[in-house]
């Protein structure tokens, strides 16, 4: 450890002002603080500090995402071999999925961190760790057959226009990962909204060659519900076999890479709630809002498949759970007052179901609901703050 420290210290002068590698100062700095806790001491105010910092916080979010990622990798392989009608065993399925998902992670981090480093260097800032989470979220919310160049373009767009122009980590109005997803959704609609992107049928690095079996259809559950002509269709997996709540909960269904398994997401939720990184108020309210509105539609809704899709199914299919646990709870773009979090969460859940049921164009509503509520979060906070101001003014009368 001290050898490493000495090495770093020896390199440091090159990167400081006047050094020959001054232009890479931010990168060096980012690396140094990644390796060692910064030894900067307090210059004013409080002399001691809590050991929690933003790096720790971000790392815990990433840790919470790992179960969803691992299951996502496995499920990519599982769906692939199901589609081509081969049975190869768990490890082969996982390795196929691993190889298929890995490029997404590389592209997402490569593009995003590249832009972050460049901007940090231009502005003379420290590299901030916010993108560590966004870069991990992006691969999890895209369909597996999305071309990598699209992911690259979308990531670049999101990092520049949803984050850096607002001032970087902590300043953004919209969730960066969701802007990436929205960009893909609206920029390449013909490609992104069909039935073909959700299951990878091609081979990956020479693995899993084959052609889809007869009767194969890559439609997601919500896609089937949205296009159904009758009010209670039988939902099926990609081979046409009927599936139900438990399949959605465990996640053996087509969908974006990380969103399919509610179970894996709930493990992540447990990590976030135990560590206190995410607000239980937001998370709980999203589920509550979704469940209540879906129930309302179940009872009094129009005579469509989406309205009569059982409320508990709404919570496990599509991106509902993933959005509730990892997206709605993003502290920067969510409501920041404690009362506001209940309202914000509830409206996300409710809005998701409204979009799913009433909007014929979009089978899934989570992404749009969260982005919409991102806009309204400051308004919610505004009213909570106004209430506080009014309460404080009332004291004068007493």
């Amino acid at each position, binding site marked *: *450890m001290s050898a490493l420290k000495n090495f770093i210290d020896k390199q440091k002068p090159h990167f400081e002002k006047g050094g020959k590698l001054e232009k890479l100062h931010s990168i060096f700095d980012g690396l140094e603080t990644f390796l060692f806790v910064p030894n900067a001491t307090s210059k004013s105010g*409080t002399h001691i*500090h809590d*050991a929690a910092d933003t790096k720790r916080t971000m790392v815990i979010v990433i840790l919470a995402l790992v179960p969803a990622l691992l299951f996502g990798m496995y499920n990519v392989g599982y769906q692939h071999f199901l589609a081509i009608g081969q049975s190869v065993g768990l490890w082969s399925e996982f390795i196929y999925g691993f190889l298929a998902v890995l490029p997404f992670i590389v592209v997402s981090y490569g593009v995003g961190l590249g832009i972050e480093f460049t901007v940090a260097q231009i502005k003379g800032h420290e590299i901030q760790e916010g993108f560590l989470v966004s870069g991990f979220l992006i691969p999890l919310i895209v369909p597996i057959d999305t071309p990598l160049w699209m992911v690259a373009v979308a990531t670049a767009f999101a990092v520049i226009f949803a984050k850096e122009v607002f001032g970087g980590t902590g300043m953004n109005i919209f969730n960066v990962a969701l802007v990436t997803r929205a960009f893909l959704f609206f920029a390449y609609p013909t490609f992104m909204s069909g039935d073909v992107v959700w299951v990878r049928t091609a081979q990956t690095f020479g693995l899993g060659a084959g052609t889809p079996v007869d009767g194969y259809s890559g439609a997601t559950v919500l896609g089937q519900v949205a296009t159904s002509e009758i009010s209670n269709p039988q939902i099926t997996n990609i081979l046409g076999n009927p599936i139900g709540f438990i399949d959605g909960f465990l996640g053996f269904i087509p969908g974006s890479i990380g969103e399919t398994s509610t179970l894996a997401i709930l493990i992540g939720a447990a990590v976030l709630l135990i560590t206190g990184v995410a607000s239980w108020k937001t998370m709980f309210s999203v589920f509550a809002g979704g469940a209540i509105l879906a129930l309302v539609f179940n009872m009094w809704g129009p005579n469509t498949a989406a309205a009569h899709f059982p409320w508990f199914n709404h919570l496990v299919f599509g991106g509902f759970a993933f959005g509730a646990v990892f997206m709605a709870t993003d502290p920067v773009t969510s409501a920041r007052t*404690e009362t506001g979090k209940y309202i914000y969460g509830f409206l996300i859940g409710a809005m998701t179901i409204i979009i799913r049921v009433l909007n014929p164009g979009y089978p899934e509503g989570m992404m749009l609901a969260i982005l919409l509520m991102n806009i309204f979060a400051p308004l919610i906070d505004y009213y909570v703050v106004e209430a506080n101001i009014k309460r404080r003014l009332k*004291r004068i009368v007493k």
Partner: protein
Amino acid sequence: MANLIKTKRGLDIQLSGKAQEQIVSENSLISEVIALIPDHYRGIIPKLMVKEGDKVKAGSPIFHDKTFLEMNFVSPVSGNILAVTRGDRRKVLSITIQREAITSYQKFDVKPVSSLSGEQIKAQLLTSGLWSFIKQRPYDVIANPTHTPKAIYISTFDTAPLAPDYEFILKGQTADFQAGIDAIQKLTFRKVQLGIKAGTASTDFRATKNVEITEYDGKHPIGNVGIQIHHTNPINKGDVVWTINVQDVLFIGRFFNKGIVDLTKTIALTGPEVTNPRYFKTLVGSNIEPFVKSNINSTKTLRFISGNVLSGLQISANGFLDPFSSQITVIAEGSETHELFGWAMPRFNKFSTTRMYFNGITNNKLIQKLFGKINYEYDARLLGGVRAIVMSGEYDKVLPMDILPEFLIKAMIAGNIDKMEALGAYEIAPEDVALCEFVCTSKLPLQLIVRKALDNMKKEME
């Protein structure tokens, strides 16, 4: 029965090195050179009244305020003016005084408090320099003598880490305390508000006459006078409340009892790096070297704080006490520590209020019994990089006030005076947000932000 106010929010930080109840009192503990530092007094513009070489007595004016000419700031000792240090634009940084071995006091003509009017007391406090110990809210500055406050608050307990025990300090000085209270009482209409820690067997403070006692129960910062005001008589726009520290009431009491300015006070020397933490009798403006020098762990780089670890001022090893603190804290600086992968390590020896660390487990009584208690390590490192505010709801947990700290801080950063006013800036002093600064994962200098905002607000409003 006194009123009882309970609060839930807050945090008691456990630091080792609490002062033992033993007072060391020797003349050698008061340094040869005493300093007055005008910057310690907030809200005034100093105008020097002496020059180098002048002879002064204890109680002689050294400088006065430019706005209120009668507001003197006096020498705590008798001796010669050693030096006047000036900075940019001839700003007075410090005035040092060479102390005489035997103090000669400036005599003031004082009458018993009961026979004096409020105006007479005010005039005497201003000339004797004791006015400088009365602070006002809003803005947390030295009180404006033209105001009449709606209340005067004194907190008789300090809940900050390793804070001195005023009950112990007060022993044998109750007559001075009572005289001080009686004098201050004449400056306002309401009775002086005395805050007492709930459940303590405090007798001396409880026996104080001519005051209204309120008991407070809760974690730090409940001992802060700002929190106590908020819960009993909150400051709205246009209100003025004055606050005085316990030991400063003693100065005022002594003055009216004896007719001299005697700024002797008891200081607690505390902190994990102090070998023998105890109380010391010394003087306002004294150098800390005499009682700190041979009493510290000298193997590390240390940080000396005049005050507590949350809101004290950093001073050097031979720095001077600031007039308002009753405590010196010595902690490790920590700048030589390089923790590898700190963000990923379990770091059992670090304290955090969040559950991102294992304090929930290591603080468990059963676990402590089985594996022993962990003494958390503290040093002056920020333990992270400075960021924009990311996490929400952190500050609320440690500020027991009906104030939305995050929004107030943001209004302060933006310099939005209307918002600051509406969100409670009049009630806040930097020390009240010290815990928010401690818990902030973005490592923002909140006390500095509040201080600057209050100064700016004062300038705009007056």
